[in-house]
């Protein structure tokens, strides 16, 4: 351990080389993965609160028949923004932010592969999210559901700019998701610490890697179909206009080719979180590591073959429906393997403490199993026809998405908050948060199964009395309010613990992965010495991944650790075995990512006003890209090591 901290000269030099700028310049130009990752997560949590407020408004409107809390127009905007926010502005960006923050720390790297691309992705995300909510503020929010079906969203049925905001800003958001996916893949494949071969990678990193590949292949479908709808609406194209030879069903095919993998894009990182948390609290390596990884891979592949189960009612041939029904049921097998792996880990481990991260992980297992069971029911075509577009579907996907993604996200927040902030979240408040949220969730969503069976359709802003839906709807609203209470406790806990929580120390949970070997929060450079990985659980298997010490390291290894040229050196390793191949110089802070994001905003947002702004934005983007790639030294200037060393 002493090799990590015993060299103050090295610490000062690396701190200076890797330091983000200060003040407003830091806000505009920082590219450090921890700064960008934290920004993603905090922004996503703000969007979560907004989506939660919309959900409460929806539930209050439905608490009793014929209420007038929200007008039909306001209700349409609220449920559209709730869905769009949860899918596009919260779950995926939060998990990306978590990955951007954690992956370099987990693989023993000092930075992501493309730090400026990282910053660009964040600015795009922020601008798209703020634009959507800016439109909401002025009454121009999208209002046709989060999947924006044509022909309802065609210019003939929905004139005005509400849908234009959806198609342009969601496409813009996908740019952010795609660049994050590329940089995560390249970071994982090319910047792992020497020795961290693929079979030694943490399960969380595996899950993020598979998720990133899914993003690469799924998100283009949404970009394409959004682009087509934008062209239909803004430039008179006819992709979805049946009268001119187009086909509205094309939208559904392309949307769900993205949409169903997107469910697993939100789920797989959560699988990675739970597979990380449970072994730490059970004090044993994850049972069936290889099976869990292969299962995640199988889920990733199979998820591209099930999109039609969202479209059973459009009138396909029965043979086709049978194929997609079988594929949908098949996906339960790898999911079940993962669940059994977690149960086996708990069963054979020494569960010493059920802290809040573990509580949320256990809650995830329960809710995800329930959501999975209704998923098997929905995969059956005759059943699906009966409950299509009813509240049963609302119940199912909330069990899968809130249970399968939001609960693990809370587990992740409670687990890694000490690493990010250096302070622990309050455990008592954490328990309150869990139980309020868990009980509230089940009270809110379990009755929806029954209401769905009784025939209540989705997306109605009110209903008539006497249909038998009143009591259960009221119960759902009570559950939503209890969930909201849990969220209040959570926010209070976050704010209070951030300001005055108990100091965490570097490794409060006794973790097995490399991030727990750094200080909390980590220094600018992450690792003083580049670690050498000799096992799957580096901190449990090998207490000294920093040996040999700096003095005895060969030159190539010492150089990686020392930044002798005052540049941001990072090791490049081979994709499979992680053998050192070379050094990469990582870029310093830059304004170009923000410029590029703003330039593309001129194109995307400007298209709503006039298509002439599209080339203007692209021209500005070209200038940004030239500046971005202009050769420069990337060296820290004005650093005088002797002066710094003289400081007390």
């Amino acid at each position, binding site marked *: 351990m002493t090799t990590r901290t015993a060299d103050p000269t090295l610490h000062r030099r690396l701190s200076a080389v890797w330091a983000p700028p200060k003040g407003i310049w830091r806000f505009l130009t920082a590219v450090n993965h921890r700064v960008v990752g934290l920004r993603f997560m905090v922004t996503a949590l703000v969007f979560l609160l907004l989506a939660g407020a919309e959900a409460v408004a929806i539930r209050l409107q439905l608490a009793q028949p014929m209420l007038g809390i929200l007008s039909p127009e306001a209700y349409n905007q609220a449920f559209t923004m709730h869905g769009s926010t949860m899918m596009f502005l919260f779950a995926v960006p939060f998990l990306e932010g978590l990955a951007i923050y954690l992956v370099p720390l987990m693989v023993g790297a000092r930075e992501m592969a493309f730090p400026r691309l990282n910053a660009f992705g964040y600015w795009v995300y922020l601008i798209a999210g703020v634009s959507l909510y800016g439109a909401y503020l002025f009454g121009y929010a999208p209002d046709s559901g989060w999947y924006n079906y044509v022909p309802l969203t065609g210019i003939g049925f929905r004139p005005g700019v509400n849908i234009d905001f959806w198609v342009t800003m969601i496409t813009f958001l996908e740019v952010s998701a795609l660049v994050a996916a590329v940089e995560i893949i390249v970071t994982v494949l090319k910047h792992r610490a020497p020795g961290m071969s693929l079979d030694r990678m943490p399960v969380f990193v595996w899950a993020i890697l598979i998720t990133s590949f899914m993003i690469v292949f799924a998100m283009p479908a949404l970009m394409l179909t959004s682009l087509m709808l934008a062209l239909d609406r803004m430039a008179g194209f006819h992709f979805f206009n049946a009268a001119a030879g187009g086909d509205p069903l094309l939208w559904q095919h392309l949307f769900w080719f993205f949409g169903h993998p997107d469910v697993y894009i939100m789920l797989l990182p959560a699988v990675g979180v739970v597979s990380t948390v449970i072994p730490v609290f059970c004090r044993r390596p994850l049972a069936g590591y290889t099976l869990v990884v292969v299962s995640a891979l199988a889920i990733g592949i199979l998820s591209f073959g099930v999109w039609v189960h969202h479209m059973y009612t459009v009138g396909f041939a029965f043979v086709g429906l049978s194929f997609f029904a079988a594929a949908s049921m098949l996906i339960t097998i790898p999911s079940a393997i993962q669940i059994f792996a977690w149960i086996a880990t708990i069963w054979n481990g020494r569960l010493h403490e059920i802290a809040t991260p573990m509580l949320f992980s256990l809650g995830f297992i329960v809710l995800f199993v329930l959501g999975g069971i209704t998923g098997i029911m929905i995969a059956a075509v005759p059943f699906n026809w009966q409950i299509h577009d009813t509240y049963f579907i609302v119940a199912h996907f909330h069990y899968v998405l809130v249970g399968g993604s939001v609960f693990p996200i809370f587990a992740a927040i409670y687990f890694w908050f000490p690493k990010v902030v250096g302070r622990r979240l309050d455990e008592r408040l954490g328990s309150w948060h869990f139980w309020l949220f868990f009980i509230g969730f089940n009270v809110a969503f379990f009755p929806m199964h029954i209401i769905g069976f009784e025939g209540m359709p989705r997306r109605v802003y009110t209903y008539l009395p006497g249909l038998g839906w009143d009591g259960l709807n009221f119960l759902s609203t009570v559950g939503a309010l209890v969930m909201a209470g849990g969220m209040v406790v959570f926010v209070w806990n976050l704010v209070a613990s951030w300001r005055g929580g108990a100091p965490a120390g570097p490794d409060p949970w006794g973790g097995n992965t490399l991030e727990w070997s750094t200080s909390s929060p980590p220094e600018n450079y992450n690792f003083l010495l580049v670690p050498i*990985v000799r096992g799957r659980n580096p901190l449990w298997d090998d207490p000294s991944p920093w040996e040999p010490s700096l003095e005895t390291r060969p030159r190539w290894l010492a150089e990686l650790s020392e930044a002798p040229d005052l540049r941001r050196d990072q090791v490049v390793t081979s994709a499979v075995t992680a053998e050192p191949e070379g050094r990469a110089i990582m870029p310093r802070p830059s304004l170009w990512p923000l410029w590029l994001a703003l330039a593309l905003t001129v194109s995307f947002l400007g298209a709503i006003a006039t298509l002439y702004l599209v080339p203007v934005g692209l021209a500005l983007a070209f200038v940004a890209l030239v500046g971005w790639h202009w050769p420069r030294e990337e060296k820290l200037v004005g650093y005088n090591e002797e002066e710094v060393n003289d400081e007390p």
Partner: protein
Amino acid sequence: MSRELLPGTPGVPSDSSDSLPLHLEGTRAPIVWGVVFLVLIEATLLCLWAVSYLYLRMGVESWPPPGVARPGLLWPTIGQLLLLLSPMPIWIALRSARDPASDDAPPRMIPIAMLLASGYLALKAWEYWEKDYLWTSHAYGSLDWSMSAYAVFHVIVVLLAGAVMWAFSTRGELQERSRAGLQALLIYWVFVALGSLLFFGTQYLVPIL
């Protein structure tokens, strides 16, 4: 893994005084990996676009719609061949630049590549100037114009990237530190040419089959 990662392992510097190389190329260079994944994203989008074309085509009896002539093949084929040839000079430049004696290969070869790609653009512009339907006419027109516009946009992108790379090469930057950048440009250029070929097959062969 005991100590096998330390000197003495194949592929790892064995002399304790050795440094790891700084200017990486090929599969060792992260930028090349980044461009490969960018290409994968765009290739997925192109494939889905072509599938969408076939999906809409299967939904109607007559393709192109009645009254619309089938697309001619001669000039589009010539344009496509020019585009397919256009990455070759970059590839030659990259091979030549391995030899320090021919450092001037990229500044000489990149303009030839740009000239070939510009020929494709000129033929495309001429072809669409002659069209008697627009994207607003019918779904066939929407697909035809949008796919060509997308291909043209990408050719313009590689032309601009080629121009910037040419400017860097005249400053002597490529040979010293940015050969991976030239490799990345070549990968993207080849993708643009092959992607355009996919659209060519879809737009020009499907209507006559």
